[in-house]
């Protein structure tokens, strides 16, 4: 017990010092910001109270030193406080602006007119030659538009399952158009389909794979979409065996858009990684925290 006592005293002493330090700085900040007239008024009240209580000697000293501190260091401290507040505000504004920009960007992740008109041309042709097939492609197009049109897209509760279905509708349409030049496979376990997942990201990767990897390749190729649960994250891979990446081509709005949205939504916990396997093609992965 004897050894226990100093052990208790020391932390108490330290916390007392800590508290008085904090109070002193609070007092100092208050001094810096408060207006002169208010300080005079408060000092006057204090002097009266001190007079009544008989603390005549300490309080006038305190009041005098307050005046001295305010006139000597108050201005600098006041400027510091104002600068701090401004920088906090600026950070907040920058963050808000980025969230807004990312939202705008996701709205702008639009349907390519080229895709829409070509698909309508296909349906037009099929109506005359294979009406049943026309009706199937028409159904895929409706499914695609429901999920892809920004005006209709449901806000805030996008699920992995929906995103995969959107890609499936898109790939079905592209397959009807490109025929034997495109094949695809999708592997998304049932239990993952209800996880929340940001909209239009997998779709953008799939569109990229078709546009830059497979469409320009004369013999076409294969796209595989796979989802699995990693360590506290969902990983969605989009692999193709197309032309791969042109190292001198710009990143494109699609990919930088995804990156910006991931940063705003998840900070550094999410990532988009791009790999080029030695066998050719491209291998893109989205890592989204659960």
């Amino acid at each position, binding site marked *: 017990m004897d050894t226990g006592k100093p052990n208790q005293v020391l932390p108490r002493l330290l916390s007392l010092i800590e508290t008085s330090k904090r109070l002193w700085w609070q007092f100092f900040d208050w001094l810096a910001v408060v207006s002169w007239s208010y300080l005079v008024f408060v000092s006057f009240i204090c002097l009266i109270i001190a007079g009544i209580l008989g603390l005549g000697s300490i309080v006038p000293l305190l009041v005098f030193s307050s005046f001295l501190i305010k006139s000597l260091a108050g201005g600098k401290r006041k400027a510091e406080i104002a600068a701090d507040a401004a920088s906090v505000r600026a950070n907040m504004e920058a963050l808000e602006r980025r969230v807004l920009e990312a939202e705008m960007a996701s709205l702008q992740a639009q349907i390519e007119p080229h895709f829409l008109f070509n698909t309508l041309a296909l349906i037009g042709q099929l109506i005359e030659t294979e009406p049943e097939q026309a009706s199937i492609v028409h159904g895929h197009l409706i499914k695609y538009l429901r999920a892809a049109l920004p005006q209709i897209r449901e806000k805030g509760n996008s699920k992995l399952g929906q995103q995969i279905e959107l890609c499936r509708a898109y790939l079905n349409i592209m397959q009807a158009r490109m*025929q034997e030049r495109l094949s695809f496979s999708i592997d998304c376990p049932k239990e993952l389909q209800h996880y929340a997942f940001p909209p239009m990201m997998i779709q953008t990767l799939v569109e990229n794979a078709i546009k830059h990897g497979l469409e320009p390749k*004369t013999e*076409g190729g294969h796209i595989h979409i796979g989802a699995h649960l990693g360590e506290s994250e969902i990983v969605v891979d989009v692999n193709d065996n197309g032309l791969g990446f042109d*190292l001198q081509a710009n990143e494109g709005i699609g990919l930088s858009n995804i990156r910006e949205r991931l940063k705003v939504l998840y900070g550094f916990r999410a990532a988009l990684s791009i790999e080029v396997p030695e066998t050719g093609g491209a291998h893109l992965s989205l890592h989204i925290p659960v």
Partner: protein
Amino acid sequence: MKKFTALIVDDEAHLRQHLRHRLLQVWPELEVIGEAANASTAQQLYLEHPVDIVFLDIRMPGQSGIEIATHFIEKSIVVFVTAYDSYAIEAFEKGAVDYLLKPIEKDRLSHCCKRLQERLSLGSNSSLVSNHLNDIKNCLVQLGSSQEISSKKYLRWIQAGVGNGIRLISTSEILYFRSDEKYTSVRTEQSEYLIRKTLKELEDELDPHEFWRVHRSALVKVGAISSVLRDEKGKQVLSIRGIQEKIEVSRNHTHLFQQM
């Protein structure tokens, strides 16, 4: 009357059928002698059977329709078929060649065919056609090159080995390159990669407006610099947006950061 011939070039089989079908309706006398799914097949077919009219899709795998149009333009009339390409439409407003928008409307196609018939009845060697030939060629050359308008191409992706694969990092993500003894390290906001390319090679291949050499061992993205400060020894030190590391500017490069 002589029977005119045509060739349809489009990478999508359904759309070739569609056009053939429509042509049969609006111009039954026209003989479509062939279809091609890509540029090389089209050129081969054309060599075997030179036709009067070539219906040419613009977006195709391999070479685009615009790139190969010059092969046909001297002896045949080219009609571009496109789903949506505003730049193409603009150019064809000049009236040199006709163009069709997909999905192809019947009325529009019959209008196009009438124009083609008029043009063909004048004979392919008429002054009208040859006068336009150079215009058309110039126009096509411009269109073809408009896709690669920047004369010099810069490296936009950095390949870094990660595990068994090769990771691609967009230059828009990169904050700076720094040379170690053996490797060059590539710094992004999130992580760091090592590559074998030297700073000198990178400096030559990257856009010089985007990346500045500020030190023998550092190549910095200009857009990532948040401030330039002088330290106690009078050396300029760069702060980089989003990360803590600072980069020193060597004496030879201080002119890059002078006050205006």
